[in-house]
């Protein structure tokens, strides 16, 4: 029996790598169409993202929210749910963090920061719980509902923003210094100038916590049971609707915390449109990371690098290529997974 798990694990890791490779190859075709050399472009991205201190810092900065959203989507997937509302949850989380920090401006030191973090998590949790309740009570499929919640979130933020933003801007007031998450370049001068900040530490800790929740706790067991086989979970006395709602709430909370990278760690205020697609990228991160916390971290670094890399190459190849690459990774990932699963079955 020992030979098979190793093979299975090998395939688990191989599939995303193959998918990424294929996507990069497909992306290479588009680069050629733009008149550039794909190898040169990819090499440039790699050099800039990991070869320079500033670039590394940018990569880490861009990867940070993806760890949050990737974890959030992964939690959903493990629970058998599609949380596509990560974008909206992150967005609202960021706003909540900024508003809470400002409201707590005159309280002593750790309170504004903690308050902001709690607010971000609660806002995301609430936003995730709504589609959860709709699914639990009415059986409404969460895919369309969570996507709708994204659009509602954008409108809601615009509405609230008009009333709380600084005059003639699209951002909130500056948060108090006590709520700021320090930047890494304070301690690591090599990363100077980059906005990578302590939110990354928070993300990694959260990844460990999610891993513990999923695989070492009773509730994590319930989440996974419902995700694999709701009929058996029900038989075992697990309340399906309640579990699904809580799963989406936890997922939303994690996504909501993703907003603090920008709001508390970089600009120190909330700004319209700051989330920039981190939600959909989270889906790719979860898929490539195979819904596992460690995989999510690695995948987030990869997509973070691509994200920054897109800016780097923008003069030569439109940065929208990165968005297309992400989509291609998703499509290749699920196709390759099927091919590999079938190969594994015939080998057994």
């Amino acid at each position, binding site marked *: 029996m020992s030979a098979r*798990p190793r093979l299975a694990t090998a395939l688990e890791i191989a599939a995303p790598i193959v998918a990424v490779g294929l996507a990069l190859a497909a992306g290479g075709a588009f680069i050629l169409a733009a008149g550039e050399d794909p190898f040169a472009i990819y090499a440039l991205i790699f050099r800039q993202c990991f070869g320079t201190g500033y670039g590394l810092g940018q990569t880490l900065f861009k990867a940070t929210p993806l760890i949050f959203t990737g974890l959030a989507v992964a939690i959903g997937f493990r629970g058998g749910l599609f949380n596509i509302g990560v974008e909206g949850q992150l967005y609202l989380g960021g706003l909540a963090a900024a508003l809470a920090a400002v409201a707590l401006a005159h309280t002593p030191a750790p309170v504004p920061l903690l308050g902001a973090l709690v607010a971000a998590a609660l806002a995301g949790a609430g936003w995730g719980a709504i589609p959860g309740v709709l699914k639990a009570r009415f059986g409404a499929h969460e895919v369309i509902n969570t996507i709708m919640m994204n659009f509602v979130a954008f409108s809601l933020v615009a509405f609230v923003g008009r009333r709380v933003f600084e005059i003639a801007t699209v951002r909130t007031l500056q948060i108090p210094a006590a709520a700021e998450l320090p930047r890494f370049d304070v301690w690591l001068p090599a990363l100077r100038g980059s906005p990578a900040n302590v939110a990354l530490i928070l993300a990694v800790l959260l990844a460990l916590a999610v891993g513990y929740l999923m695989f070492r706790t009773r509730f994590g067991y319930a989440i*996974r049971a419902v995700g694999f086989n709701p009929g058996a979970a029900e038989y*075992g006395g697990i309340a399906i609707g309640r579990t699904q709602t809580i799963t989406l709430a936890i997922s939303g909370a994690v996504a909501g915390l993703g907003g603090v990278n920008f709001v508390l760690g970089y600009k120190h205020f909330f700004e319209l449109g700051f989330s920039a697609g981190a939600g959909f990228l989270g889906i790719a991160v979860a898929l490539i990371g195979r819904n596992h916390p460690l995989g999510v971290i690695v995948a987030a670094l990869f997509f973070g690098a691509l994200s920054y890399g897109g800016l780097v190459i923008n003069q030569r190849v439109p940065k929208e290529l990165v968005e297309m690459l992400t989509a291609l990774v998703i499509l290749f990932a699920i196709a390759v997974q099927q091919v590999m699963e079938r190969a594994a079955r015939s080998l057994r």
Partner: protein
Amino acid sequence: MSAPVVALRNVTRRFGSVVANDDVTLEIAPGEIHALVGENGAGKTTAMRVLYGILPPHAGHIEIDGHTVRIARPQDAIRLGLGMVHQHFMLVEPMTVAENLTLGHEPAAAFGAYRAGAAQRAVEELSRRYGLAVDPRARIRTLSVGAQQRVEILKALHHGARVLILDEPTAVLAPQEVDELFRVLRGLAAHGTSIVLITHKLAEVRAIADRVTVMRAGRVVGGGALTSLTHDAIAELMVGRAMAPLVVERTPGVEGVRLEVNDLEVFDARGLAAVRGVSFTVRGGEILGLAGVEGNGQHELIECLAGLVHARGGTVRIDGRDAPRGTRARFAAGLAHVPADRHRRGMIEPMTLAENLILGLERDPALGRGPGLDPAALARHARALLEAYDVRPPDPRARAGALSGGNQQKLVMARELSRNAGVMLVAHPTRGVDLGATAFIHRRLIAARNSGRAVLLVSSELSEILALSDRVMVIFDGRIVFESTARATDERELGHYMTGGAGATA
């Protein structure tokens, strides 16, 4: 003997490392009823799927009327005169009989319009020709199982089948419906149609077949005319050893009432009454068998008793106390449940054996501190159970989905029997389970009974019910229509009440 109408020659088919068919050679004569027997997993269905073009063989070939043919898809098989009635009917439920029967050969008008009237008439004509009564305009989901089976047979005949393959056709039929089916098959055989009957029920083989082929572990191990083989000879070929009769050591004496059900009313998923005022008791040290054709309320009854479905009326008492709401509470109140469908309800296949063994138990304080689960405790818990119940492989980290049917069922039994529950609900415990595991499970159920538990046994195998139960009941249309001790009744009588025969006790 004239050339066999169809023959498999040296057919081999693998699934990964499992050889499902190993050099199988099989001949079917024209107009004969040929039984293909073997345990679950012997390779009978695989051989027929190769024949019907659903699976390509890795070696060997097929002959029709002595000529080698290539059957790459079911279409080819149909064209060559083969027809198959699968165990799970291949019928589109919301569509009508006519639509199902003409699918693939639809009468069409200009622009591809479907001519429903012509389809209807074609079905009426078919029905007349073969003497199989069906209503072309009825929707499949409104038909009884026997009627649906007739539609499937008609479908095969409509496509010109000279050889009709039936996969476990009597699994879902009551004894009287089986008689009717056999009448139809004999009629078809008399007119030259060959019948291949895949089954593991030896009694039926004797009743209907002319010749038999026995398969075991992917190989053909024997066969011949029924007149030259005894029941035991066939059984021995199937199992590879002399079959020991099921020895049931019963301790005498029965204890107090442990499960009490009064006027129970349960609705099904569609909101229709499935259990209409059922009352019975089960005592400690007793097995009460519940017989019935599928779909007469036994499924809803069990699900209600287990706490999965709320009763609309009536009461349930476990060990003298009102049964609490919900499965978890009922487990705590002394109930165990071996569900009818282990795949859908009983286990979680992608999870490990250790994780499956704590289903419903994950809140047990012994398994971890606070909100956490201790992997070592889980492994210990699992190892003990896996060994005690002979689950193979006894590896707590193996995936449940990788186990054979028999081992999966033993896994579920291990979990449920270790609950130390006073009342056990056991549904179809040996469905899809090989003979070895079946014997093991039967022995464990008897042991549970002997240790003072009350067992409610639901099964579609009347032989199993009669062998294991102390008392039996029959459920029909949501009501208990017959009760008796197991010794005082037999399969005929049970079958009579299962199909709504007269004389039902209220």
